[in-house]
């Protein structure tokens, strides 16, 4: 599904990623964990086409996306749940969701998609006509996920979905990730909550200071000393 090779990324002169390799297979949930500032968000943004100062390849189903403009990346089945949710605050919940299906190919599936999102997150149905900016943090996260689902992705990029949320809400979000994956959508999950991320995923990568320092099955990584060291810096 997704194959990232030798990815390097810069912010001006500052290099954020050094030779990152990773892959996500069809129907897989893969997590990327690591300390703050390790380059996780840069990685996700590079894949989504929002960060363009890169070298290396990012291939989805064999098609290299590094030269594809951001608004065309979605055509290849990739959708993004951005860090900090970034819902369109001055638009209603409904409009946010509809916008997820902006791409022409996604529009026919709008009604079905809305129904699916409403069954996944019933609270969004209740708040359909409310402005997204007036939602709680957890509801905004659900909206961000719902919006991405309406794009009918085959690969969902999730950037720190638990950020700033209360534990109960985080549980709901992670349940949703499982449900989405059960529908056949591959998920690349970037998380700072290492334990939860590894619970929901089959495999994981540890990113520290812009490099992949460890990878393996979630079972191997859970509780590993290496993960601890790289996250806590001990």
């Amino acid at each position, binding site marked *: 599904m997704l194959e990232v090779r030798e990815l390097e990324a810069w*912010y*001006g*002169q*500052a*290099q*954020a990623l050094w030779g990152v390799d990773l892959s996500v297979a069809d129907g897989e949930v893969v997590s990327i964990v690591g*300390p*703050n*500032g*390790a380059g996780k968000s840069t990685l996700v943004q590079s894949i989504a086409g929002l960060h363009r100062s890169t070298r290396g390849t990012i291939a989805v189903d064999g098609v290299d996306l590094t030269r594809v403009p951001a608004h065309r990346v979605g055509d290849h089945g990739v959708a993004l749940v951005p860090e900090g949710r970034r819902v369109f605050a001055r638009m209603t919940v409904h409009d946010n969701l509809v916008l997820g299906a902006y791409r022409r190919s996604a529009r026919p599936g709008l009604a079905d998609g809305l129904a699916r999102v409403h069954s996944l997150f019933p609270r969004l149905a209740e708040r359909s006509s409310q402005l997204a900016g007036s939602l709680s*943090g957890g509801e905004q996260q659900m909206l961000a996920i719902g919006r991405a689902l309406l794009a009918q992705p085959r690969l969902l990029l999730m950037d*720190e979905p638990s*950020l*700033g949320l209360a*534990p109960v809400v985080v549980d709901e979000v992670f349940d949703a990730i499982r449900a989405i994956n059960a529908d056949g959508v591959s998920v690349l999950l970037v998380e*700072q*909550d*290492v*334990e*939860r*991320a590894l619970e929901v995923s089959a495999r994981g990568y540890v990113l520290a*200071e812009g490099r992949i320092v460890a990878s393996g099955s979630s079972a191997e990584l*859970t*509780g590993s000393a290496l*993960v*601890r060291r790289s*996250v*806590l*810096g*001990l």
Partner: protein
Amino acid sequence: MMARGLGGFALVFAVLAALAVWREDLGLPIFYLVLASTALFWIAQATSWNVLSGYSGYFSFGQGAFVGVGAYTTAVLGGRHGVDFYLTVPVAAVFSALLALLVGALAFRLRSFRGEIFALLTLAVPFILAALARVNSEIDGGQGVIVPVAEYPDWLAQFQDFLYLLNLVVAVAAVAAAFAIQHTRFGWALASIRDAEDVAEGLGVATFRYKMLAIAVTGLIGGAAGSLFALQIGFVTVESVFGLTIPLFVIVMSVLGGRTHWVGPVLGAVVIVLIQDRLSASGFEGWNLIVLGAILAVLVVVAPDGLQARLWRRPWQAAVALVAVTGVLAVVDSWGGPLDWFVAGVLAAVAVVLWPGRARAPVAAERRPAAAPVAPEEAAGAVPVAADAEPGEVLVECRDVAKYFGGVRALDGVSLRIRAGELVGLVGPNGSGKTTLVNLLSGALRPTSGSIAVAGRDIVGLAPHRIAHVGVSRTHQIPKPFESMTVRDNVAMAIMFGRSPRPLAGAREEAEACLDVVHLRHLADAKPAEINLHERQLLEMARAIATKPKVLLLDEALAGLNPAEIDAAVAVVRRIHATGITIVIVEHLLRVVNQLATRVVVLNQGALLADGDPRTVMNDPDVIRAYLGRHAHARGT
């Protein structure tokens, strides 16, 4: 520098004044003085505009307001009340300055307007004044006001000579003032406001006061020149002063000439007046404004920095172009007259100056002077030790500090004491409130509740520059150097406006010592755009210590660096700490915090989670849970 410069202005004034006094003996046609008068009027206006809008970056569309107040003061006092013209000029200048202060108080105090909103606010002012003038028959009443011809000394041949001399006095005074401002603290403060206002405020620059001063100077010059304008046009109407023509001209002139240097508006005014005059003389009157509009539109896209900076880079090429084109046309003598040839030469010089050249690349590695290694002790000794607080004394005291953004509780009841000599690592997951705390300590934000004291002084509600003077200094996550100044002057700025201010020369000397501490001395003459991110972050630190803080707040000063650079930066932080400055460092890389800090404070969801020495804190189950997730401590340890 200053004395020589002002002497130069006196000399220029004497020479130009002589042209009017002995004009007939010199055989100079009056036409040239009329043209020069126009140029001088616009030099004064553009310079007036530039003090506020060029130096400090607050673009105004309201120049007509100052001209209008000046013109109407002279017209009404002279025309209706018989007041002597010479008396009306200072009155006009003062009225205009008062208006400027009123506008400034509204725009800078109530809300901090920048960019287009400030421009719109200033655009509205002439409209209001125009309405007032139209309604009030004591002023205008819609009829216009006739300005009586002023008496002029009999050693001048004509009234035009007199106008020229008056304009010369005001223009030279205006340019000399702009020159003086640029070369004093005042000008440095305005430049720092233009480059990065919030950083300037944080380094101790009283930005509000300097902006008010700048707008007052703009009003003063604009009003005095407006007073002469009344005499020149003889009949003042609302349309002649309050329209958009005056702002259009001063903006085009200053953008063309360059807005960061006193020479810019002078160059721009001369070039524009010459072009306008030649177009009119050649029967292309209808093209005057089209050319003006095109110059503005093209310049903003192609060369927004204007002529001056580029001219300084290619002075000889410009001079050669001017002389060559003028000379060739004079020799061939098949078209136009001397003024046409000269203007053609000027245009050729302008073209040569504006011709796109190679962009200046960052200082290439081979051209860079090597960093001379400085022994840590040596560097530490070079910096005046700032620790005027006894080690162990409580320096920062936060009590129950909370900050809400709407419904979001970024910080909720944090109490924290920092003692002199500590190096505190402030850590926590994303969104835990670290940067909010730094912003509260530096005064960039005000707490919703709670108290913060630094060195025993309550700092809540103080302007950031006052807090800097109390002894708090900070760096920014994304370095924000003053782009128009060299590395050395960036640091000198902080010394000039810091806790123990020094004049420029002394500040530059002292800046070298600060640059030694961060190992940047070899780049002292580079511009910030020419150095890399690592060096920019070191510059942030050098600038912060130059204010001689008691507490230094480092906000993710190592973000985006490679491992070797991180190690270098860590050594620099150690050196700074060794000079006796108390440090609070916000950092994602826990490995760095563990290496550096004498104490670690962990925030989580806006509250204090742990506080103690690094080893203990990093083994605290709550901390591990915050970083790794809910079950980590149960399984891990």
